[in-house]
């Protein structure tokens, strides 16, 4: 199947007083219709900037896309006019943000906020748009949708607001939904409900989802394919099952080893082993990094890693890793 969205060698830089921040530095991936793709990485690794770049929402005063291409449905997004881009946003590609508490306008009622997008993109009259808004609230399983339409955001709980955000995002039947940490601000039971809802709607509507998160648990449950980012670069891309079964990049390995595991319960004393952390910190992105960005924190680093950046290569079917020392890493895992 031809990819719906194809990002090639995307580079987004921010221009600050301290120098150029290479927030996204050569990211390539593709998304097929109806697929769920996870983007994982720690804070500041460029996940959100990648998402914002796709919608061209990087504030021009601070940064811009300096290289690469983003193709969506046969069109090159980096060269579209602002007006064409506005037509696309919220219509073909929708986005939901991390903060359900503040992502809705406090002075407008729920119905208006959903209907607004319908009127804008589907060019329906207001009355029909209100009906569509009610349908959407039913779809995201909000009880008593008719009454909720007239309510204001402060009358809704966090989980309900995120449902409304999903309703707004999906009301124009987008082909791609970008969810930037959609459940981070919610408590665990609501997280599960929201994720279930998103997957369920994906099945119903056939929307492809890009799920940005730092929670590997969420990725394991929801995503078909995952790519891991570190310091603005891609370090590993694989089907979710393959990634969790056999992480091939030292960073991914470190991330997975930092997760609490159930098997600790089999210890007769009940003591849990100390979790392993990845030593060191993320490098400053203002300095050009000649080799692999993970070198200072990597136990496998050799001279070649410092000198030249590793290339993303396919080491197993559909499993791409950007590391010079995959053979040694694999040995250590086994």
């Amino acid at each position, binding site marked *: 199947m031809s990819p719906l969205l194809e990002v090639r060698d995307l580079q987004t830089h921010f221009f600050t007083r301290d120098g150029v921040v290479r927030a996204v530095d050569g990211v390539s991936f593709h998304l097929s219709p109806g697929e769920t793709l996870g983007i994982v990485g720690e804070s500041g690794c460029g996940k959100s900037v990648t998402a914002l770049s796709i*919608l061209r929402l990087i504030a021009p005063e601070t940064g811009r896309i300096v290289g690469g291409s983003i193709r969506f449905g046969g069109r090159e997004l980096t060269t579209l006019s602002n007006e064409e881009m506005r037509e696309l946003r*919220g219509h073909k590609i929708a986005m939901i943000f991390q903060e359900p508490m503040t992502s809705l*306008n406090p002075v*407008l009622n729920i119905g208006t906020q959903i209907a*607004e997008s319908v009127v804008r993109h589907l060019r329906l009259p207001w009355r029909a748009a209100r009906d569509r808004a009610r349908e959407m609230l039913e779809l995201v399983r909000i009880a008593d949708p008719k009454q909720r339409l007239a309510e204001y955001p402060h009358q809704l709980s966090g989980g309900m607001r995120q449902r409304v955000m999903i309703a*707004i*995002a999906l009301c124009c039947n987008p082909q791609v939904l970008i969810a930037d940490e959609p459940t981070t601000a919610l408590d665990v039971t609501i997280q599960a409900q929201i994720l279930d809802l998103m997957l369920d709607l994906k099945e119903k509507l056939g929307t492809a989802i890009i799920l940005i998160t730092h929670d590997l648990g969420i990725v394991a449950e929801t995503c078909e394919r995952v790519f891991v980012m570190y310091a603005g670069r891609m370090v590993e891309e694989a089907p979710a099952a393959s990634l969790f079964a056999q992480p091939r990049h030292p960073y991914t390995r470190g991330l997975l080893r930092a997760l609490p595991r159930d098997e600790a319960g089999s210890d007769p004393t009940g003591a849990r082993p100390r979790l392993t952390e990845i030593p060191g910190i993320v490098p400053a992105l203002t300095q050009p990094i000649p080799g692999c960005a993970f070198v200072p924190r990597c136990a496998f680093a050799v001279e070649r890693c410092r000198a030249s950046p590793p290339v993303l290569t396919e080491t197993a079917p559909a499993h791409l890793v950007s590391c010079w020392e995959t053979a040694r890493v694999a040995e250590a895992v086994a």
Partner: protein
Amino acid sequence: MALTASTADDTLPPVGSLVARIATFVRRNPTILIGAALLVALIAMTLAAPWLAGDPFRQAPINRLRPPSERFWFGTDQFGRDVFSRTVYGARVSLIVGLAVSGLASLIGLAIGLSCGYFKRIDGVIMRVMDGIMAIPSILLAIALITLTRPGLGIVVAAIVIPEVPRIVRVVRSVVLSIRAQPYVESAIAGGTRTGKLLARHILPNTLAPLIVQATYVCASAMLIEAGLSFLGAGVPPEIPSWGNIIAQGRTFFQIAPWTIFIPGAFLAVTVLAVNMVGDGLRDRLDPRLARRM
């Protein structure tokens, strides 16, 4: 009796609840209410001036500098004109100036403030211009404008509006800057909302509450400045009875006829107080952190 009471109970609850709601509103917002009541009384007085008061221009040298009496409630001035009639008509000028200045300054300030807060490119330049305008004293501006044209109400309004605009601009701009950074604005941009719609629907409504509050303060200060300008002879032409003019003309005789100064002065003070009370009440009421359900 019991029957009528029960029917009343069946049919009247909306009215009863309305009365109760008004009572609750009054209890919770005494300042707005007192201020508004004073203003309504003042406006009623202004509208009813032709029936309420005599001719404010009629001179009667025989009745010069009469103290307040049954015939001349507020006494007479040095030309024998009735101070009560003049004060009642003088309210017109104050109200017109207050409303015109706050209305015009709000509209202009809102437009400039919205564009400054939203379009960062023009922000720096326009705000420096605003700082410059803010430094112009309205009295000097009024004198300059009057020397260029003829004195009149329009000139007074313009002379007060120009230095007041930057105050509104600052308030609106600061609100726009903070609202712009709100996730729901980002979210609306991500949803493909056009700039005009974004401003009108998502940003403008949030600026209205602070704008209304600021407008009442501008209104009060405009009334004071107008009186000051008229007192100095740089305001409305001396033949028009405005509170500032009445005070200015009574100044020479105020030791023997203090009512010519104190009475319009008291009206001015109470009017400005009433406007400020409404402003303070609205500020408390419209602040979402302080607002409670009525």
